């Protein structure tokens, strides 16, 4: 667009309407009405994902988290150098890789579970999720 054209322009905005943003609780209650139906399903997904996360965290705490105690017991600086400077990164990446696989599998399983529902797509609470 040419500068000459831009120079002839005038800036126009609508007048303030003192509108108030859509009441938040309305939108949320609508979502709530939907979630109440699928609540049991979502909770089961959350449980699965949380279990995977906690497993990963416990493995991290038991391996890497106990290293300071091990170093103190060994009292060998060469081991500290090798483990902290190099060896520890592999296990970290391994835990991460395992977790992502588990979490994605949980989500796929969940999607299959939900896709099995009748076509109206509103799962009832009657069926167990796990």
């Amino acid at each position: 667009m040419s500068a000459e054209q831009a120079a002839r322009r005038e800036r126009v905005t609508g007048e303030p309407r003192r509108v108030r943003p859509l009441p938040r609780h309305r939108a949320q209650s609508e979502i709530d009405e939907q979630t109440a139906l699928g609540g049991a399903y979502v909770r089961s997904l959350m449980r699965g994902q949380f279990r995977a996360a906690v497993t990963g965290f416990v493995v991290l705490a038991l391996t890497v988290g106990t290293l300071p105690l091990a170093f103190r017991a060994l009292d060998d600086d060469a081991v500290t150098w090798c483990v902290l400077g190099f060896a520890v990164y592999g296990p970290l990446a391994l835990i991460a890789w395992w977790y992502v696989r588990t979490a994605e599998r949980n989500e796929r399983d969940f999607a299959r579970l939900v896709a099995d529902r009748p076509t109206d797509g509103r799962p009832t609470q009657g069926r167990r999720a796990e």
Partner: protein
Amino acid sequence: MTLAALLFLGPLLAAAGYLLGRRTARRARTSDVGTPVEHATFETLHTASLAAPPLRAGLTAEAARKSARRLRSLLGTDALCLTDRDTVLTWDGAGEQHHGAQVMDQVRVLLDTGRDKAFALSCDDLDCPLRWAVAVPLTVDHRVLGTLIAYAPRESAVLARAAGEVGRWVSVQLELAELDRSRTRLIEAEIKALRAQISPHFIFNSLAAIASFVRTDPERARELLLEFADFTRYSFRRHGDFTTLAEELHCIDQYLALVRARFGDRLSVTLQVAPEVLPVALPFLCLQPLVENAVKHGIEGAVGAGRITISALDAGNEAEVVIEDDGAGMDPERLRRVLRGEGGASGGIGLLNVDERLRQVYGDAYGLVIETGVGAGMKITARIPKYRAGVHS
């Protein structure tokens, strides 16, 4: 209805202020820092202003609980009760255990007649301060939604009058709440209406353009038909009021493909998109009308080829979307009228609608900013916050 509110509010507050002020009025007649009557008026106004916001959510248990305390201090009674048509919503003050159970029986008549009612209370507990009560209806559009009951140790005409006024004031607040809700419904209806608002001309022109390719370039015709199907499917989508910028831009691309099928080289489009802003959530179909507007202006005004630039850039907490054309432009005065809703049906409905919806969702600071002049093209800037509570794609 706002006028009605003012009409009710004025006398009520003056009366209540006078009542409260009289108690302390004898100490000083005039003062630079306000007489006791004036102070009492301020206090009353303040209390009323505190009671109003919860009521704007309608007559719910939560709203009743939050406002009852303020209303009771407005009336200066020992106890105050709010009910809807079925149950006691809240009880503020003393005596709920003695009198709470009978309330609905006592006000049943009132729910039908809608007329104030006073009644004496019998109580076995000698220490109970509640001996008399006045109940007033809370009405919206002549329907009784509930009641307000004020309790006192003895019969009091002053309280009866004051309770009546407060009841009417609360009714006004509830009417305003109802108004809020109907306005919200109206806007939701507008949003839904806009979705179906793909112009019949566009459908006709697109299909005609596609038809012209059927013989000469069947492959292109097939592709365009698929674009057309995608575009209409997106536009008639049923669920959710919001979408992502990525999806909206994709829809624009399909729209442009169909437009180009018709105009060919007469239209050139440049896009600048920062990938950072693609996940931003925004109201459904709020950019496509702006592009449609630019196409119309860009081609109408141009002797040769029309040029349109569409950019979506990252600006910290916001995405900045700019749609610019070098076409005929618009008389700024006329545009102002269009944005005020006075432009009539002749064009600009899309602009007005988008401007209104952006302000509705994000607040007045986020209306469209348009730079234009006759023969000077048009540049439309929309700012979209990256996060706003309740806006999810």
